């Protein structure tokens, strides 16, 4: 019950924000928190619930970003359609990637995803006729859009804020739904012991591929959003190892295999990044690394994983 109340309060707060602050800087911060929550949630489905630690999830982010940007810039398609297609493209390439990488287990799987991500990055960097290579893609203006009669002001951050909220709710919803379903139970079993899961009659490959596809879809959506919000992408921004690793951090620090964990992780990490940027300009990654080490050592279930046990109504969980 408490969780539902918290969730409702959370959503209320999210929707009320624009009325509370008109400061674009804070709006940007919130958008970043939502963006990282999206990515953390995406990674969490595969890495947290199913225990398949991917170090190459930036692949799907990047593919989504490039799909959205290219469909708009080269074919003139609506960016919002492009956003959804970005997600779908992410899910689509996840299938062959999954089929290859899922033949491996544990750290070997992780390394394979890293290799795939690097290959994709290098291809994007070099296939200039498609991706414009290191020059990247730039959107100078977004198409006019009418929302219930009034034109949307793309210069303001608010429209992006609401889009981010919508995407995040979709991601959280998907995670919540899966966590309560048979698939979710199967994923947790796979994380515990894949042989036992097979022995219990679970089609482990199918479960992992579904988790990956949903995960890649969400990451692809986030990628498309990134492109439209920042209006510029290049291979090193969206396909980098750092991007992949930061996704892992959000989910691990926030709480592996929990629905709300990524939110907590994103809040922590964006806040830290901001504080560091304020005082030192650089170095926030030092803290990411340190936090990661502390969490793994003392709270492998993540910050939210630990905190939720203190909430009233908590029972012993796996």
């Amino acid at each position, binding site marked *: 019950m408490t969780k539902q109340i918290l969730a409702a309060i959370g959503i209320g707060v999210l929707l009320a924000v624009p009325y509370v602050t008109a400061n674009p800087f804070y709006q940007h911060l919130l958008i970043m928190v939502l963006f990282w929550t999206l990515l953390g949630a995406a990674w969490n489905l595969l890495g947290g619930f199913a*225990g398949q*630690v991917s*170090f190459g999830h930036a692949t799907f982010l990047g593919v989504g970003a490039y799909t959205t940007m290219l469909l708009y810039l080269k074919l003139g398609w609506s960016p919002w359609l492009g956003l959804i297609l970005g997600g779908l493209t992410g899910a689509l390439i996840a299938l062959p990637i999954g089929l*290859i990488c899922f*033949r*491996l287990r*544990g*750290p*070997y799987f*992780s*390394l*394979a995803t*890293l*290799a*795939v991500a*690097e*290959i994709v990055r*290098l*291809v994007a*960097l*070099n296939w200039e006729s498609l991706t414009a290579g290191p020059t990247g893609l730039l959107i100078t203006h977004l198409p006019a859009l009418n929302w219930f009669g009034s034109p949307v002001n793309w210069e303001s951050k608010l429209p992006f804020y609401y889009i981010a909220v919508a995407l995040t709710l979709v991601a959280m919803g998907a995670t919540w739904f899966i966590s309560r379903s048979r698939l979710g139970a199967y994923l947790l079993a796979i994380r515990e012991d894949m042989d036992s899961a097979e022995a219990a009659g679970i089609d482990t490959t199918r479960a992992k591929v579904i988790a990956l596809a949903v995960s890649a879809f969400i990451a692809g959506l986030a990628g498309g959003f990134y492109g439209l919000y920042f209006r510029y992408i290049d291979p090193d921004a969206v396909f980098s*190892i*750092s991007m992949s*690793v930061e996704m*892992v*951090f959000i989910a*691990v620090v926030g709480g592996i295999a929990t629905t709300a964990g990524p939110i907590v992780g994103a809040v922590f990490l964006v806040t830290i990044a901001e504080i560091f940027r304020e005082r*030192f300009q*650089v*170095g926030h*990654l*030092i803290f*990411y*690394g*340190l*936090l*990661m*080490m502390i969490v*793994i*050592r003392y709270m*492998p279930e993540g910050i939210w994983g630990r905190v939720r046990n203190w909430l009233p109504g908590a029972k012993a969980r796996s």
Partner: protein
Amino acid sequence: MATLIQTIVSGVLTGSLYAMIAVGLTIVFGVMRIINMAHGDMVMLGMFGAYWGYALWHLDPFVSALLWVPLMFVFGMGVQRLLLRKILPSGELNTLLYTAGLSLLIANLALFFWTGDYRTINLPYALAPARPFGISIPLPAAIAFAIAIVITAVLYLFLSRTDTGRAIRATAQNPDSAALMGVDVGRIDMITFGLGTALAGAAGVLLAPSLYLYPTVGEILVVKCFVIVVLGGLGSVPGAIAGGVLLGLVESLGAVYVSVPYKDTIGFVLFLLVLLFRPAGLFGVGRS
């Protein structure tokens, strides 16, 4: 023809240093079953050790190895004993994530204190490359190669002739049996990690005069290192050496004969193929 030989020589020279880095990673994996994501950053520390030694004290990098390598050994033992030992019981993946965090920490501390500016060590004797048989060999690369060979030979003797070396090999094969035979596995873990770190640091020192140095170089290096170690077979020292030289050759030949931009891709594709079809490595000596 001359180009081919030149390319091969360059490839072997670079490859020998890759090999040393890879040996460090593979012995740690062999004994502790962990993949140390921070390994590349250890190389970086060696590189910057050499750099600061040269910039501040005018210490020739190759001489400074005498200082930095033992220091890295102790540092590595410290990391294992104080940090990693507590994490190992929680499993392979948690340890992997932990070392990823450590990597981020080290690389970004370096970035913070030393900035991201590219540094170089300009040795006076590096200006004129040696030209045996018309092949250009930069002196620092040649010296590095020679020292790397010596270190590798010493390591080989250590692993095969000394008690500690044998204990390391025994633990790598079967920690439980080794413990039953009286091996202090905790101590061996510590020494092995120290050794791995020292090898990485040594490679860093040796590479420093030949490369552009920057704090985040560890990221690319560790990825290449994985490729080598998987190609050669996880846990196999000869495999790591062969894999290192192989990658050096592949990159060198790829850059000249295929195309410069895609040369790194070749390595990764090879890596995936090996992981899928010969997980015990190209030579079948590793554990899968």
